[in-house]
């Protein structure tokens, strides 16, 4: 044969090549976009409708419920403050999922890493509070929490690299171990002897707590830490070569290897950074809201962060929105409990429905591209 080395034309794609892009958006780019937006709106509405139906089954008028949720969440300054307060650790915990996701990892261990963050912050406070200036104490707590969270995530990364255990499984198990670590500490080592009722660690001095933004309410600078972190993660992933390498390793590990990247180091660093962010989420909650280590301190922040990250398709900027949305749903959950008489955990249904909606609607948009 001469110069053409065509392989067996097994598929139509073996047709003669044109150097010009073949598949350019045809006339209906706007129409496609509208369809895509429409699908997402429909998905979200579907989630709300289903949740309304469930509430109705429990004898709650869904329209009143949504009105109630809306007004309790967005109509007063203090309510908006609560949304921001709740949203801050959600944003950080979501970033803890998004960074490893960039490298192709599934970190379901945000929960344990958040918990270890609270442990790290509490430990630092117990050890150093009397000796450090307030600002230094806060800084040290952030570092200790980040370190503890990174350690917890690092275990999972190490297991993946050394033994091949999938990080989704190991991080799930580490979540439960972290909870028991907290229980051990508050019932034993760090138990506040002068406390009453439920065992807890000694409360933080008020000077060591995260400063409030307004004189009234509970809103503290945690939301700035969260939004700042999201912006930083966004910038790092977008502008640094590390961020670029993560994307390569997550997209095609073999291509990364062939390009001379160290995939193992990327996996480890992504998990460590993720764990550190989760740890900071724990610190923000600990030093901003709780002030002492107690059982059930984080509820399900790590899991909510997972949902938020998937909602935002692991985009750090969208995570700010997703974290605040879930923060709002969470605050609305309190109103569910108070006004509609539904258990607070009911909001988990709404969160799950929203994620299902995104998972179901998201695939189609992807499919349309490829």
């Amino acid at each position, binding site marked *: 044969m001469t110069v053409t080395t065509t392989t067996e034309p097994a*598929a139509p*794609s073996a047709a003669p090549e044109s150097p010009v892009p073949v598949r350019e958006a045809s006339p209906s780019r706007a129409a496609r976009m509208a369809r895509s937006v429409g699908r997402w709106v429909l998905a979200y509405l579907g989630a709300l409708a289903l949740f309304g139906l*469930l509430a109705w089954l*429990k004898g709650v008028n869904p329209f009143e419920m949504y009105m109630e949720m809306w007004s309790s969440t967005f109509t007063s300054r203090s309510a908006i403050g609560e949304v921001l307060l709740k949203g801050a650790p959600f944003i950080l915990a979501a970033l803890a999922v998004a960074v490893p996701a960039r*490298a*192709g*990892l*599934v970190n*379901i261990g945000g929960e344990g890493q958040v918990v270890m963050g609270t442990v790290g912050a509490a430990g630092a406070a117990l050890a150093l509070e009397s000796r450090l200036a307030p600002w230094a104490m806060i800084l040290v707590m952030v570092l200790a929490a980040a370190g503890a969270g990174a350690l917890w995530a690092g275990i999972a990364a190490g*297991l993946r690299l050394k*033994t*091949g*255990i*999938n*990080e*989704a*499984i*190991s991080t*799930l*198990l*580490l*979540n*439960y*171990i972290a909870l*028991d*670590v907290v*229980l*051990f500490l508050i*019932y*034993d080592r760090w138990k506040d002897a002068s406390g009453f009722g439920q065992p807890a660690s000694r409360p933080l001095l008020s000077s060591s707590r995260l400063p409030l933004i307004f004189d009234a309410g509970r809103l503290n600078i945690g939301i700035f830490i969260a939004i700042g972190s999201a912006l930083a993660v966004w910038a790092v992933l977008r502008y640094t070569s590390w961020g670029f390498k993560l994307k390569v*390793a*997550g*997209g*095609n*590990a*073999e*291509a990364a290897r062939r390009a001379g990247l160290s995939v193992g180091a990327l996996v480890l660093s992504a998990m460590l950074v993720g764990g550190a962010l989760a740890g900071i989420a724990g610190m923000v909650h600990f030093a901003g809201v709780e002030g002492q280590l107690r059982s059930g301190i984080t509820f399900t922040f790590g*899991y909510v962060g*997972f*949902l938020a990250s*998937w909602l935002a398709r692991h985009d750090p900027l969208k995570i700010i929105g997703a974290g605040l949305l879930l923060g709002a749903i969470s605050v609305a959950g309190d109103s569910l409990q108070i006004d509609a008489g*539904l*258990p*607070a*955990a*009911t*909001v*988990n*249904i*709404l*969160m*799950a*429905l929203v*994620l*299902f909606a995104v*998972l*179901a609607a998201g*695939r189609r948009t992807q*499919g349309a591209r490829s």
Partner: protein
Amino acid sequence: MIVAASTAAGSNLLVVAVLIAGVTAGTSILFAALGETISERAGIINVGTEGCMLCGALGAYAAASATGNPWFGVLAGALAGGLLALVHAYMVLNRGANQLASGLALFFMGLGLTSLFGAPYVSKQVDTFSKVAIPGLSKIPAIGDIFFNQDPLTYLSFVTAPAVWFLLFRTRWGLMLRGAGERGEVLRAYGHSTVKVRYAAVVSGGMLAGIGGAQLALVVALAWFENMVQGRGFIAVALVIFAAWDPIKAMGGAWLFGAALALGPELQVRNAGVNQFLLDALPYVITLVVLIVLARKRLESAPEALADVFEGSRVVSSP
């Protein structure tokens, strides 16, 4: 951490007592692990097994309380778990959703649904299963107390594990199911549908997890309360790996975890002076350690289709 409401009375020997309570405590994990084995053998991992167990627990408790018959409870638990798993099957098989993300959403769904519909059942009493001694066998020293003086659901699990094994390895259906989890394209080349068999696998997996939840509510805890499964579903998912996707090995693994769960309370009863919370972490630590030891070897026997999920990122294959 909940374990058998009644510690093994009459048995002073720690090992025997732990094993007796361990078999009871491990049964819910066993059912869930058997279900997850079926699902994963078909190539679908369901990390929302925890949610299916929660639904099963509440379904069982509610039905048992409505009918006064715990067996209706078990049936309702299976149905509830299966229905929830159906959502996962739809998301993964019809909507192409990421299995791990969909599974976690499933956990949230189960958590939320059961707290929404479970509130009236908190602190409600129901008729539950009681222990039934098997004549003759229960008289064997130690072994008799451990295995043959148990509740009917535990006996059911003794039968279910070999039954699942038979189903997977000795029936045509099992052959197709495992084929779907290994190389779906081979099955499709011979005109078999992989979607149908995977639907069946995921839903029956959820049903077994539901029965596991039922056992937890009706035998172990004798109560319903929010988030009562406390990670047993996640342990079950990990257990499937280290049992190398084998129902019989899963039995041993489940009892090991059950024993780990039971160790703490038994030691407490004896005032052993060991911190309870470190003991509570034991099942998870053991799971991790066993995985560390066995993972490399086990992962080789993983159904091929699962590798796609576990790899996280996949090398794109040529079109």
